């Protein structure tokens, strides 16, 4: 990824809260029903993430790390406990506020990219900007949004693929498109769920380098992985085992 002063200016949010922690959890519990059985996945998670931090959550398959990530990003609700984002309790947000939170405050990068097959690379990247506007609002700001999306693609070495569809890209390219989409609205927090899980080691390393550069530019990142070697790129590593942080 080509990074520079412009990247820093684009990536760092210019309205920081006074609290040094961007994200806190207190006593998170989550269980799933599997037939007649209830499986506890999270058993009292207390976590704090600083602004600008790169946190890796490591755990074996089924340890609850993806569940934790989904709860941090308001894609799921805990059974018990509190998640505070910049001091605000997410459970007190209404449906509309949660949608705005997911659109503006958080960017998700998934293991399987999860791009929309019917949209081009450029459209996938500026999708979050389109979602936050109505038709008239989008027509007014689309030039700006498309410019930002193109800049992100340039930074992610994908400028020549702007008009392609996801099925025409390699795994690494698709993941970079997903990163571009996650960064489109300059989110305060980037959440990555096994971002290299579906990539070969060389491509995976390239993606990790992207995360590294983003973090050096000030982006707060929480990454989930089962591979401790991948977690080494992070500034802090926590291990999740049996639903608890060890």
């Amino acid at each position, binding site marked *: 990824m080509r990074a520079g002063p412009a990247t820093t200016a684009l990536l760092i949010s210019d309205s920081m809260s006074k609290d040094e922690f961007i994200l806190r959890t207190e006593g998170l519990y989550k269980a799933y029903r599997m037939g007649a059985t209830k499986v506890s996945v999270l058993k009292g998670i207390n976590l704090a993430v600083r602004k600008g931090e790169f946190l890796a959550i490591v755990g074996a398959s089924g340890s609850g790390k*993806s*569940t934790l990530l*989904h709860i941090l*990003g308001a*894609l*799921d609700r805990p059974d018990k406990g509190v998640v505070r984002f910049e001091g605000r309790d997410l459970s007190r947000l209404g*449906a*509309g506020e949660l*949608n*705005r*939170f*997911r*659109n*503006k405050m958080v960017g*998700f990068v*998934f*293991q*399987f990219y*999860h*791009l*929309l*097959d*019917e*949209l081009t690379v450029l*459209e996938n990247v500026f*999708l*979050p900007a*389109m*979602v*936050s*506007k*109505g*038709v008239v609002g*989008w*027509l007014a700001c*689309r030039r700006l949004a498309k410019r930002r999306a193109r800049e992100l693609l340039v930074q992610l070495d994908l400028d020549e693929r702007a008009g392609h569809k996801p099925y025409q890209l390699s795994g690494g390219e698709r993941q970079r498109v997903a990163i571009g*989409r996650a960064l489109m609205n300059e989110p305060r927090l980037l959440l990555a769920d096994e971002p290299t899980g579906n990539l070969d080691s060389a491509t995976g390393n390239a993606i990790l380098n992207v995360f590294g550069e983003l973090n050096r530019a000030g982006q707060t990142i929480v990454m989930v992985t089962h591979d401790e070697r991948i977690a080494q790129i992070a500034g802090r590593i926590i291990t999740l085992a049996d639903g608890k942080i060890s």
Partner: protein
Amino acid sequence: MYKIILSFRYLFKKRISYLAFLAVALCVFIVVVVMTVMTGLVTDFKQKNHSFVGDCVVGTESLVGFTYYEDFIRILDKEDFVESVSPVIKSYALISRVGSERSYGVEIMGIDAVRHSGATGFGKTLHHRKDDVSKAFEPVYDLEKIGCVLGIDLTLERDAKSRYLYEASPAEIAYSVSCFPLTAKGALAKAAAGLVNTKTFYYSDTSHSGLARVDGSTVYLPFDQAQLLCGMAGPFKRVSWLHIKFKPDIKLEAGCEKITSLWQRFAQERKAELLDRVTVQSWKDYRRELIAGVEKEQTMLIVMFALVGITTVFIVFVVFYMIISHKSKDIGILKSVGVSNGNIVTLFSGFAFLVGVLGSAIGAVGGWRFLVHINQIEDWLFEHFKFQLWDRTIYAIGDIPNAIDLKVLAGIILSAIVVCLIGALLPSWQAARSKPVETLQVSQL
């Protein structure tokens, strides 16, 4: 904006979407074709009945008829809302070709051809004397002879395609018409002297009203001749019906109400015995028995199509359920970037709307093109497979009606779009309520 983009992309990029709008197109096509043909037949049938009767009839079903009709006609002629009045003798007779021993029963209508053409569409039904109705009862081969006009099915043969074989001029055929004249009391007038009145008439023209029963059993005779045959002449002349046509700007119900009030006043003043059997009816009421059956068929057809509509909703529901189920990953992605449940429903409703619009357009255009060529298609089928939609020897139908009513078409298209929206509603709502974590889990892929 993403909803519009995705709706269009889902429509044209996903093959399963083709199933949806082809299903809609097929349903619209069927409804357009069947409704056009059925509505055309019903409208045609009603128009023919209206043309046969005129706007209003005053008279009695009794074979005895009623008196003082000439006085009432004078009253009607003075009214500014009445355009024309035609007195008609209606009775039954036996008819046989002179020289043949075979006779058959017919309904005779004694009319003044010119007056009757003014009050009804009689003149337009003639073949040889269409341009000069006054000569309807003058056979071209001998103008001195007294003519009779026969229903077309009584005289003409049909070809293999059930089309009538018209002659260049009427054949010289004499018919013997025998009637039982009745007194004003309803008794046989000639009880002591042979019972029947018989007279010879000469075939002068055919009448093609388009009504099977009329064309197969009606013989028109000159008014005064029919009056004599039926025993309705004499010092107190009688008639069966007065057929009335209103001026163009007069509404049917209003006109009939005025005629009713005129007749009630007239009957009250005269106080004659036969007048209390006389009724005033609009053409719709007069032909109610025949029209009601056809209208009932049309109503049943609409009900059946409503059931087809319900089936279509179900088909569309199933197709949309399949499409939206395949889109669960997309829904999870959209929710992860902040799309609300309502917008998910709007997205798929927009998609359903496009399916409805595209399917309706294809179905409507296909139906229109089919209807334009429907008669040629039937001709081709008859030539190669001897197939006719309606056997013309049984049904009094000419060409199959194919004029599309734009209001009906608009209603069908609107209904198709509504059906699509209804069919997509439940799957959209279920999809919107799904949790993004469930659709985005690795195990879901």
